[in-house]
């Protein structure tokens, strides 16, 4: 990946002291948490924000004339502005709160796809997609007769750009791509890929679930039409995520769900929808989770996404070198541009056995298909073991992983 010159290295010891869970033991061993691509842990400041909101500030938003409702509304809407700045969106009107990246994609499928795509239209996705960026489009294809086209990848886990360009035709009406592969760590050249689609006027959705917590994201620089990510993968709570959408698209999309808050007026004859982004936020939202997401963004921004990316890259390099030097260990996903995700196989040992033995050592990794079964099929494996790093991981935890894998090999040797 691009080497980012960090002006000041992260103080990882200090960061770790902010995360209470990192100090617990699992099976009597210190926790080594290397499952950050699945979900990250939460610093005390975010936990405190949840507690303070529930203890002192909770009321329903956008409806009360009383003090607490106004306070909760102000805090909730303040996070919208925070998210806008976090991804450099032009306007807070373009920030829609959703449950997570999955719901964000489903919202776009429903609001844009079902309204504007027709039988025979083609949707281009990639071989690296998470199920969340495959299945919604398959649902649309079943319903509307649209056709799914898949950008293939090479053995390293890099998308074939010439194939991508070949797939973009007059029939292509939508492109949906992952920014970073959750299974292999590949960072896709989404800026260039968006530009290619835009040459043909095709809107592009980027699944940023694995990117937003690990690198600076600028939706204007990327020129993404839609960008989705999840709070719980960036030190925030579960149940909250973000859909960025350009106003020009959000304005003309149909609502996703109907209910309170997404309307301006309702009669039995006619309902007028609320303005964006509220048109897409029916019902009482996850207020506490949203406000805590704001605290998580503060935490990440305070430490600097460029510094976080640079530090995590050193962990990736260390782990890649260490596992790469182990006989009987094969790394899957060797793209030139990678985030700190390391999928691997231990020869002769099923990934679930690897995962269980490591778990007994206190090391949490993911074993399985990572909700990316087509990636597994492409690589010819049923599953992989995956270690994924965050900025609170330490070099000594890479060593622990290596020792754990040795233990697996001894046990099954």
């Amino acid at each position, binding site marked *: 990946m691009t080497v980012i010159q960090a002006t000041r290295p992260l103080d990882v010891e200090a960061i770790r002291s902010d995360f209470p869970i990192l100090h617990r033991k699992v099976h009597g061993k210190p926790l080594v948490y290397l499952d950050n691509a699945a979900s990250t842990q939460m610093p005390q400041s975010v936990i405190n924000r949840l507690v303070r909101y529930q203890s002192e500030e909770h009321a329903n938003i956008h409806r009360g004339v009383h003090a607490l409702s106004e306070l909760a509304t102000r805090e909730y809407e303040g996070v919208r502005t925070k998210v806008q700045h976090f991804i450099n969106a032009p306007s807070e009107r373009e920030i829609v709160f959703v449950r997570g990246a999955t719901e964000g994609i489903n919202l776009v499928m429903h609001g844009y796809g079902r309204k504007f795509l027709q039988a025979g239209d083609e949707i281009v996705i990639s071989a690296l997609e998470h199920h969340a960026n495959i299945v919604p489009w398959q649902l649309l294809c079943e319903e509307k007769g649209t056709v799914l086209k898949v950008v293939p990848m090479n053995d390293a886990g890099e998308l074939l750009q010439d194939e991508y360009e070949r797939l973009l035709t007059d029939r292509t009406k939508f492109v949906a791509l992952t920014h970073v592969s959750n299974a292999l760590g590949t960072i896709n050249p989404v800026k260039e890929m968006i530009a290619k689609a835009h040459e043909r006027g095709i809107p592009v959705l980027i699944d940023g679930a694995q990117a937003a917590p690990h690198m600076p994201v600028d939706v204007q620089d990327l020129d993404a039409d839609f960008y989705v990510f999840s709070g719980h993968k960036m030190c925030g709570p579960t149940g909250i995520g973000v859909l960025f959408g350009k106003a020009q698209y959000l304005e003309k999309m149909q609502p996703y769900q109907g209910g309170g808050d997404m309307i301006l007026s309702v009669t039995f004859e006619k309902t007028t929808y609320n303005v964006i982004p509220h048109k897409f936020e029916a019902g009482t939202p996850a207020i506490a989770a949203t406000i805590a997401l704001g605290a998580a963004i503060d935490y990440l921004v305070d430490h600097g996404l460029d510094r976080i990316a640079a530090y995590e890259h050193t962990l990736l390099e260390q782990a890649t070198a260490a596992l790469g030097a182990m006989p009987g260990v094969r790394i899957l996903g060797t793209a030139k541009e990678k985030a700190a995700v390391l999928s691997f196989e231990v020869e002769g040992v099923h990934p679930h056995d690897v995962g*269980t033995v490591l778990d*007994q050592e206190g090391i949490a990794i993911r074993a399985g298909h990572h909700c990316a079964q087509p990636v597994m099929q492409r690589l010819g494996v049923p599953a992989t073991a995956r270690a994924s790093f965050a900025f609170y991981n330490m070099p000594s935890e890479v060593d622990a992983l290596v020792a754990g894998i040795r233990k697996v090999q001894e*046990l099954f040797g």
Partner: protein
Amino acid sequence: MTTSNQLYQEVILEHNKKPRNYGPLPEANRKAEGHNPLCGDHISLTLDVEGDRIEKIGFEGHSCAICKASASMMTTTVKGKTVAEAENLIQEFRELATGKLDPTAPHHLGRLTVFSGIAGLPSRVKCAVLPWHTLHAAFHNEASVSTETEA
């Protein structure tokens, strides 16, 4: 001693490395496929059942050590037994793997009790039980069984 040593006991590791009755039976009159879509475990069972007795049984597939050892030990256990006896073992093994087997009640599992540790690892229970589900399916002429359609 760690739980992984308790779970991956020598007998399980040994059956994983040298599975018994591995390979398909050409003369099979019963067969079934077992699949765990969540982890990709896949086994196929072939049986030669004469009257109500399991004369021969073979299995093959791709799976984790727990699943493979469970399949291997299952085949050595049910070979020569009647279908009714095997059905009873299936029930007892399911109870063992889910921690529901009454330890004070008599059972017929013998060495299969090495799998008792699996009950503490809910994510791995399906691996151990898959061969037994598949055996049940073979008896009932179900071509395939998936862990994800079990109640």
